[in-house]
C-alpha cells in the first residue's frame, strides 16, 4: 500500500455546510467534508444517516438547500449530473444505472457518444475500453448484453462508464451490497489500482470491515450530521461502531423479570435466498417463548427485515423450518400470513405505510385490515359499518389515537398515531405471538413510551414477543434476551439485563473476534 493522503496538494473534494431537506426530513445537517486527492475515503453510517443524499448532492442529482462544493480547490455549482461529470466526478449508484437491453459498449457510450453518429464513437470507445480493461484489470466482453451479465460484471460496466468519461473522482454507493465476497475482493483490487493511478475514491458503506480494509480516511455520519473524521489507521471498528450508532439517553422502563413459558415459535436453521441467489438469511435458529421479549439487534440491512417476512409468512424459507404451535412450516409446506394469524401470530410490520395500512383508507378500514372476515366485522354480504366504526372508536380511546376520528384517512394521522392504530389492531386480537418491527420509527417521544408499555403488557400477559429494531436503546430497554444479526446470521446472544450498548455495538459490527484478539 502507498502512503495515505497527500496533505500538500488541494483536496479533491471539499464540502462546506451542506444542508438538505426532503419535506420535514432534514437529511443533511450542516455537513462538511474534505477528501484528499488520490485517496480512498470511506463514509460510514447507518441507513438513513444521509450518506447517499450527500453523495447525490455532490453528483448534482439533488441540489443542496445551502452550502458550497469545491472540486480540486475550485468552487463548483452542481445543477445536474452533467456538471459533476464535467468536473470529473463519476458515480456508481447502489441500484445500477444501466440499460439492460443495451450492450456493454452502448451503455458506456450513453451520454458520451462523441458526435451525432454512433459509428465513430463506437470505434473509439471499443479501443478505450480495451485500454481501461488492461490498465485496471476490468475484463469484460464489450458486446455482451448487460441484462445477461452477473451483478459483479454489471458493476464493472458502471466503473468503466465513469472511467470512460474521464472521472478522476469516483463515488461508490454501497458497492458490495449485491456482491459475493469474491466479487467484493476483486472490486477492492480494482479500487486500489485506481487509487494508485491518482483516482480519488469515495466509498459509502455501512460495513465496517470493508472500510477498515480498504480506506485511507473515514468520515462517520449519524442522523444527517457528520459526527467524526478519522484516519483509518488510527481508528478501530469498535470506535466507528460506537460513532455510527451513537449514544443516546436510555429510556429505561420499570421492568419485572420475565417468566418465560413454553416455546411458542421455533426457528430451525432458517435460510432465505433472494431472486438473484444472494443469501439474505443464513442458518437462523432460535426459540421464542411465551412471556418473553426477544430483541433482534443489528445494523439495518443485515437480514432483520427478511427474518420478519419469513416469520410472518410473507416469504417461505428457502431452507430450514419454523414451528408455530406445532405447525411445521418449510419450503414444501408454506403458511401464508392469513394462516399464521389464525394460529395466533400477529405482525406489526416495519414499514407501516407500505405494509401496515393503506394510506388512502379511512382509519376504521385500516383498523380491521386482515381481520375483515371476522364475523364481528362482516355479515353475509356487507361489512358491518356501524359496528366497525364503534369498535375503531374504542381502539382509538384505549390506545390514545389522536384525533379520535374513525373516518379520517389513515395517512392524515401522524406517524405515532398511525403506529398506535396498527398496534391496537394487532394487540387487541390477543395473539400468542407478536412480531414487532421498528415499533417507534418516526414516532414522537410521548408515543414511544406508550408503545413500549403496550409491548411490555403483552409480555406480562404471556405473549411471546419478537422485537426487531435498529434503535439499540429500544432493544436494550425492552428485551429479555437479545440476538444480534450480521449479514443474515445470528452472531451473538446476550441476556437483556447483562447487555450494554458497547458489547452489542461490537457484535453488530461483527468486531468481537478482533477485539478479543486485541484485548
Amino acid at each position, binding site marked *: 500500500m502507498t502512503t495515505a493522503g497527500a496533505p500538500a496538494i488541494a483536496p479533491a473534494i471539499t464540502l462546506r455546510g451542506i444542508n438538505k431537506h*426532503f419535506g420535514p426530513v432534514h437529511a443533511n445537517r450542516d455537513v462538511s467534508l474534505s477528501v484528499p486527492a488520490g485517496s480512498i475515503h470511506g463514509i460510514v453510517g447507518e441507513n438513513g444517516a444521509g450518506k447517499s*443524499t450527500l453523495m*447525490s448532492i455532490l*453528483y448534482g*442529482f*439533488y441540489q443542496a438547500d445551502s452550502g458550497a462544493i469545491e472540486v480540486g480547490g475550485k468552487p463548483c455549482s452542481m445543477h*445536474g*449530473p*452533467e456538471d*459533476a*461529470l464535467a468536473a470529473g466526478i463519476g*458515480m456508481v*449508484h447502489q441500484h445500477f*444505472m*444501466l*440499460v*439492460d*437491453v*443495451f450492450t456493454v459498449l*452502448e*451503455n458506456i*457510450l*450513453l*451520454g*458520451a*457518444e462523441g*458526435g*451525432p*453518429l*454512433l*459509428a465513430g*464513437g463506437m470505434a473509439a470507445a471499443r479501443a478505450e475500453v480495451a485500454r481501461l480493461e488492461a490498465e485496471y484489470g476490468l475484463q469484460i466482453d464489450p458486446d455482451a448484453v448487460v441484462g445477461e451479465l452477473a451483478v459483479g460484471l454489471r458493476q464493472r460496466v458502471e466503473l468503466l*462508464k465513469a472511467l470512460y468519461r474521464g472521472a478522476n473522482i469516483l463515488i461508490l454507493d454501497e458497492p458490495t451490497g449485491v456482491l459475493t465476497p469474491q466479487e467484493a475482493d476483486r472490486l477492492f483490487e480494482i479500487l486500489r489500482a485506481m487509487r494508485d493511478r491518482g483516482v480519488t475514491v469515495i466509498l459509502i458503506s455501512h460495513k465496517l470491515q470493508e472500510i477498515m480494509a480498504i480506506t485511507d480516511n473515514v468520515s462517520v455520519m449519524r442522523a444527517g450530521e457528520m459526527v467524526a473524521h478519522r484516519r483509518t489507521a488510527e481508528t478501530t471498528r469498535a470506535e466507528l461502531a460506537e460513532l455510527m450508532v451513537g449514544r443516546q439517553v436510555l429510556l429505561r422502563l420499570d421492568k419485572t423479570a420475565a417468566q418465560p413459558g413454553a416455546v411458542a415459535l421455533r426457528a430451525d436453521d432458517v435460510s432465505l435466498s433472494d431472486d438473484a441467489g444472494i443469501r439474505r438469511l443464513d442458518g437462523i435458529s432460535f426459540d421464542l417463548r411465551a412471556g418473553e421479549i426477544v430483541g433482534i439487534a443489528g445494523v439495518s440491512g443485515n437480514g432483520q427485515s427478511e427474518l420478519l417476512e419469513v416469520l410472518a409468512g410473507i416469504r417461505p424459507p428457502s431452507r430450514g423450518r419454523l414451528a408455530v404451535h406445532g405447525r411445521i412450516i418449510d419450503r414444501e409446506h408454506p403458511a401464508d400470513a392469513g394462516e399464521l394469524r389464525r394460529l395466533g401470530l400477529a405482525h406489526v410490520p416495519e414499514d407501516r405505510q407500505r405494509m401496515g395500512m393503506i394510506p388512502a383508507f379511512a382509519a376504521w378500514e385500516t383498523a380491521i385490515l386482515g381481520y375483515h372476515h371476522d364475523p364481528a366485522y362482516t355479515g353475509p354480504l356487507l361489512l358491518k359499518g356501524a359496528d366497525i366504526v364503534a369498535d375503531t372508536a374504542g381502539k382509538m380511546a384505549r390506545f390514545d389515537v389522536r384525533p379520535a376520528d374513525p373516518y379520517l384517512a389513515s395517512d392524515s394521522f401522524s406517524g405515532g398515531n398511525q403506529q398506535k392504530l396498527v398496534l391496537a389492531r394487532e394487540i387487541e386480537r390477543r395473539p400468542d405471538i407478536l412480531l414487532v418491527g421498528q415499533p417507534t420509527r418516526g414516532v414522537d417521544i410521548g408515543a414511544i413510551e406508550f408503545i413500549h408499555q403496550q409491548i411490555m403488557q403483552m409480555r406480562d400477559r404471556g405473549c411471546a414477543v419478537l422485537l426487531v429494531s435498529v434503535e439499540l436503546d429500544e432493544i436494550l430497554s425492552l428485551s429479555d434476551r437479545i440476538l444480534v444479526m450480521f449479514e443474515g446470521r445470528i452472531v451473538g446472544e446476550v441476556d437483556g439485563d447483562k447487555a450494554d450498548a458497547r458489547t452489542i455495538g461490537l457484535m453488530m459490527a461483527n468486531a468481537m473476534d478482533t477485539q478479543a484478539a486485541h484485548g
Partner: protein
Amino acid sequence: MAEDFLLVILTLDATIRVSVPLILAALAGLVVERSGIIDIGLEGKMLAAAFAAGTVAYLSGSAWLGLGAGIVISVLLALLHGFACITHRGNQIVSGVAINILASGLTVLLGISWFSLGGLTPPLTGSARFMSLTWPGAEVLAGTPILGQLYAELLSGHNILVYLAFLCVPAVWWLLYRTRFGLRLRATGENPAAVDTAGISVIRMRYLALIICGILCGIAGSYLSTGHGAGFVREMTAGKGFIALAAMIFGKWRPVPVLFACLLFGFLDAIAIRLQGVEVPLIGEMPVQFIQALPYILTVVLLAGFIGRAIAPKASGIPYVKEH
C-alpha cells in the same frame, strides 16, 4: 393467366395505398414509445391533421400547404399530450383518449360550421391534391407482361407521400440504431434514470420524440385527405390509429417488422375490398360485414397469439420522477 396476374398486382397496389397511413402512424407510435410514452392518440392526431390538410388545401389550392397545416396541428396535439403527461406527469392513456375525443368532435363541429357539408370538406381537385407520379417509361412498359406490369402498376403511379412513407422506415431505423439521438431515445424508454445520471435531460428527449411522432401522424393524416382521398370525410381515420398501434406491438417496436405488420393489415384491407361480392367455394358469397371485420379479427388473433413474446420498452407509460 395475365389477367390473374394483373389482379394480384392491383391488389398489392391497393395494399400499398392503404398501408401508408398505417406505416407512418405505427412509426410515430414506435418513436414515442421508445422514449417511454404511450400514445393512444395517434388516431386523433391523424384525424385532426386530415381535417387541417383538407381545409387548408381547399382554401389555398396547394396540397403542400395542406400538408404543412396537417403537420402543425398534429405536432401541437402531440405537445399537448407531452404537457399533460411529461410536464404534469398525468396519465398517458387518459391524455391520449382525450386527444382522440377532442379531434373527433372538433373536426365535425368545425367542418359543419365552416363548410355546411355535413362534416365533409369540399372536394379537392388539381394541385390541392397530391397527384400520382408516373415513372419514366411506365406507359410504354405497361404492356410488357410481369416485369413491365410490376413496374408500371406497383412501383410507378403513387403520390409522393407513399414513397415518403416507405422511405421513413429505413430513416427511422437509421435514427434509432445509428445515431446519438437514437441511442439516447432507446435508453430513455428503457431506464430514464440511467439517462438522467448520464447528464441527459429525460424531459427533453421525450418532447423531441413527441414532436417526431406529431410530424409522422401529420403526414399520415394529410395523406388520407389530400392524397388517398380527395377531401376530408368525418371519422375518415376509422380506427387506423389503433390498427397502427397493433402493428407496432406486432412488429415488436422495430421499424422493419413494423413495416411488414402494416403491410399485412393493409393487405387484408385490400383483399376485403376485392372479395366483396365474390363467390368463395363451399362458403358462397362472403358477407360484406365479415370481410370488413377481417382485419380487426386478425388483429385480435395475432395479438392474442404473439403479444406474450412482444416486450415493450420497460419504462413505457411511467412518468419519470427522481426518487429519493
